[in-house]
């Protein structure tokens, strides 16, 4: 069930170039949100923004009633959000969409996150680890300063977790794209017989297409999280359609996470 909840900003802090972490008090969302789902957030301080903005939930804690959103400033709405201070109130429709659905018996997963695409994978990573799976995370960003999720992944400190990273300019981790490391990891796994049984990718679409292509090559189930412009965010307006093998589907409620077998990639 969807609901429209008043959320209150608890913290809104700059983490890197154009990258902010917003923590919101949103008790109901914090309780119910599943990995890969998003909130549809009103730009409450500027009514000329008639559309809400979709943001994946980065982390949620039912006990503290807090959710985290990692956002990148790309336009007017996200710029407006940088001005929000502790106590600013907004409305979020939550918890929206079909989240990650790894095979229930996944033993070894590879998560590939590009840029802010690292955020929607974080709860998935945590959940897989709790289920006892081994999880390899490959994160990529333009520069070391942009790798703002890395520490939080390291801080999970759960057995079975391995975190690798790349930057386009080599300022941190290996130089190159996260898909290069993903390719190496998949090849190594195939050679050593320690195959992955699930790949999840989130980031720019070209990056996800490469990741999906690799998963297909190695015959591993794979999901990706797609971004589309959204108006209603609840499945009514058909703004956000994705071409699938079964015709057009809505990214907001039929996705945002899609199994790549559904996509004509």
């Amino acid at each position, binding site marked *: *069930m*969807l*609901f*429209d909840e008043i959320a209150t900003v608890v913290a809104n802090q700059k983490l890197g170039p154009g990258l902010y972490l917003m923590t919101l008090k949103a008790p109901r969302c914090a309780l119910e949100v599943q990995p890969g789902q998003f909130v549809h957030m*009103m730009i409450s301080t500027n*009514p*000329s*923004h*008639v*559309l*809400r903005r979709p943001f994946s939930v980065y982390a949620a804690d039912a006990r503290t009633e807090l959710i985290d959103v990692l956002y990148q400033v790309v336009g007017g*709405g996200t710029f407006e959000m940088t001005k929000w201070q502790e106590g600013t109130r907004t*409305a979020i*429709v939550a918890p929206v969409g079909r989240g990650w659905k790894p095979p229930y018996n996944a033993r070894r997963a590879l998560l590939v996150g590009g840029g802010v695409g690292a955020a929607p994978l974080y709860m998935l990573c945590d959940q897989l680890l709790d289920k006892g799976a081994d999880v390899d995370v490959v994160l990529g960003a333009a520069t070391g300063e942009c790798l703002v999720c890395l520490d939080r992944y390291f801080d999970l400190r759960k057995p079975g977790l391995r975190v690798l990273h790349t930057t386009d300019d080599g300022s941190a981790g290996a130089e190159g794209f996260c898909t290069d490391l993903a390719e190496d990891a998949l090849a190594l796994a195939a050679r050593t017989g320690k195959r992955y049984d699930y790949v999840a990718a989130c980031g720019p679409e070209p990056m996800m297409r490469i990741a999906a292509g690799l998963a297909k090559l190695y015959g591993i189930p794979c999901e990706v999280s797609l971004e*589309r*412009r*959204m*108006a*209603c*965010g*609840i*499945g*009514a*307006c*058909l*703004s*956000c*359609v994705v071409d699938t093998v079964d015709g*057009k589907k809505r990214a907001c*409620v039929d996705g945002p996470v899609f199994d790549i077998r559904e996509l004509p990639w």
Partner: protein
Amino acid sequence: MVNMNVNLGGLFMKNPVTTASGTFAAGMEFADFVNVGDLGAVTTKGVSLHGWEGNESPRIAETPSGMLNSIGLQNPGVEHLKDVELPWLAEQGARIIVNVSGHSIEEYREVIYALEDTPADAYEVNVSCPNVDAGGMTMGCDPTMVAKVVGTCRSATLKPLIVKLTPNVTDITEIAKAAVDAGADALSLINTLLGMAIDAHTRRPKLARVVGGLSGPAVKPVALRMVWECYKATSVPILGMGGIANADDAVEFMLAGATAVAVGTANFTNPHASIQVARGIERYCREQGVEDVNELIGGLVC
């Protein structure tokens, strides 16, 4: 107690608020937010005979206090509406206005035929969609074509026939009169204003189709003016819409001559908007000592 009932050309509504076609689907998606049976009516997304694919993405762009859309009437066809959405709406006790589209005069007629034995309470004939190449606005800009479409639909049904007009014309009253003369029971306006948006940095259009329909608070002054003009020029009830986001907006439309109003883009900003507008109109009436909401219609003081 304020009397909130209105009569929109033979369609009895328990309050003057419906949803603008295409912004509310058939209400199912809004069920977590709005009890659709509490609205005056639900107006469903435009439906064609066999369904349409719609346009390429991106299909929307935000503009200051508004948005552009070029959805292109994507819909699964009238049979799906009959099998799935209409029974659900009927079960919720909703009054149903079905928005009808077609690429040809015959298609409008066939859609209406298909809906005659269903719970559809009224038809809103869309001769105003700016996002399709045939039918829609191309018909709605020409009084002779409008008269033909409306005349054909009229002879296909006895249910209330509402004709939805495009604002993309020089004189909307000319089209309004043609529709009324051809048998329209009510007029609905405005559909979206044709517009476009460009990204200066990429030098590309923000919509795949380049142009699209503008809606939201940005269009409200234009919509009010057109409702006022049609109110003066014709004698049929008007369903007013264009940027209505709260009860005051709705009251303004009624004062300009609307009998009922539709909430569209505001459903995206706030999924409770439709029902909040309905409750707000009632509160306005109570506060203003208005006993019957019909007193507001055309009540502009000037």
